[in-house]
């Protein structure tokens, strides 16, 4: 029989070969998949929402064919709009004290969002998949050697 020698490096298994995502580099997949409007038929807090649903929601659905738009009657409750995203999270915005154009702004906010949790920018360190965009400085590769 022959002899085998051990591999010099860790073997790369075919089942583990994969690529990492790059949404937006060439094609963009919008992250919102569904918008649900919940309103009450009688209460005055839903009056503006009812106006919006009668006048604007159809145009909204036509302008955003990638979003499922659902209108749900929920009586004796305050009006809300709920957005469902591809990362299995949802965002809920109350439309209780909103004028009709403010409702449009809130809906646009949901349409533009990625569904990720909002984290404070204050104390988070930099997160990146790459080391650096311009390369990492090296004292050995300057025109004049760096002297401490």
């Amino acid at each position: 029989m022959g002899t085998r020698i051990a591999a010099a490096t860790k073997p790369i298994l075919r089942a583990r070969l994969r690529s990492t995502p790059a949404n937006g580099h060439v094609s963009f997949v919008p992250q919102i998949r569904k918008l649900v409007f919940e309103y009450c038929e009688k209460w005055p807090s839903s009056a503006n929402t009812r106006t919006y649903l009668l006048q604007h929601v159809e145009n909204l659905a036509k302008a955003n064919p990638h979003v499922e738009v659902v209108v749900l009657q929920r009586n004796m409750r305050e009006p809300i709009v709920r957005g469902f995203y591809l990362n299995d999270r949802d965002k809920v915005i109350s439309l209780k004290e909103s004028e009709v154009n403010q409702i449009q702004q809130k809906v646009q906010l949901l349409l533009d969002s990625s569904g990720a949790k909002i984290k404070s920018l204050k104390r988070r360190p930099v997160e990146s998949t790459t080391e650096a965009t311009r390369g990492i400085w090296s004292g050995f590769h300057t025109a004049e050697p760096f002297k401490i």
Partner: protein
Amino acid sequence: MSLTHKRLASTAAKLKLAKKTAISTSHLKAFPPPEASSSQFFNPKTWATLQPPPPSSLSAFAHRIGLGQVILSPSSPPSASASAPTGTALLQQALTHPSFVPLFQKHYPNEPLPLTNANLNTVGNGLMGLFAAEWLNAAYPHLPTRVLKAAVSAYVGPVSCANVAKEWGVVPLLRWNRTPSTPLRPAVLHTDALSSVPRALTALIYTHRSLPTARKFVHNFFLSRDVDLRGMIKFRDPKKALSETVARFGRERPVSRLLRETGRFSNSPIFVVGIYSGSDLLGEGFGSSLKMAEFRAAEDSLHRLYLTRTPSHLLSLPTTTFSTSRPSMLDAIPASQSVGQGEGGEGVYVPGELGVTEVLYGSSERSGVKVVGRPVGRGFVDGVEESGEGELEVEGSLS
């Protein structure tokens, strides 16, 4: 984790799962289902998996990935029969895995069987492999063969296809059934079912539009993703490989020179070594020892060779010669036609530069070099064939 924590975590997981499997009921023929009240063995979870997704979610999915016009427009390919599905029914077919059919038959024996994506999966898989292989070969002409094969798996393999499907939001739309493995066929897992969807969609685009359109689809969603090719190219002895490669190219023998150093004899020295062929610097490497720096420099030189990339404006792909009309078995491409028309001026196809094949050292069993993982000395043919494995460390069952 304490018991209380474990209970809370499992309850939260169950609730999350319940949220995921919630389905809308407005498109169903009858709700609540008649079997719920009549039979005592009604399982709501099974019933939920058997229901088709609502047409609105299918249409939203098609528009989300930019296929609204392709799939949902009423045109159909010339070879399609009158009963071929169109619109959301076509998309439904692409989203139904063959493992779903036995489950459906068991619960609805009198209904017509749902169409599955088995054939589309096979066609799409071949197409995706074709597009990935031709692009990688054109973009990286000097890439070693085994690395090329691994890169094709990384770009359009089962894991990537499943991940892309998840990112598209296919999970609530997919109809499948988990089946354990039998002696006759392997198991069907979630990744297997998910990975069939992008392949089926590629095949659909090919049949309903053209091959160049299908190629654009694969380039947009798969070949634009990131794969670390550098990490796939590994060497047992890069210095030896480099010296033989340089000899193959007919250049001067490589010489390593110390470019910079600091901290020699301290506990953290740094050496920067460059490998020169004559006066041309082939590669540079750092290390805490001279040998390590030289090793990295040789690796760097070989990476710079193997990973040379054709600029995208000089890239020419063989499939640009295919016609931009719908594929039909009756079409014969005439001998004079070699231009892909109507694709934004692709022009005449010019074959790209053929890269020099990688050096295979230890080229016969008589040299006495042992090869990685393969028994040596089984005969002349085996020795010749296995000679290449010594250089590259791409393992797994790639051959």
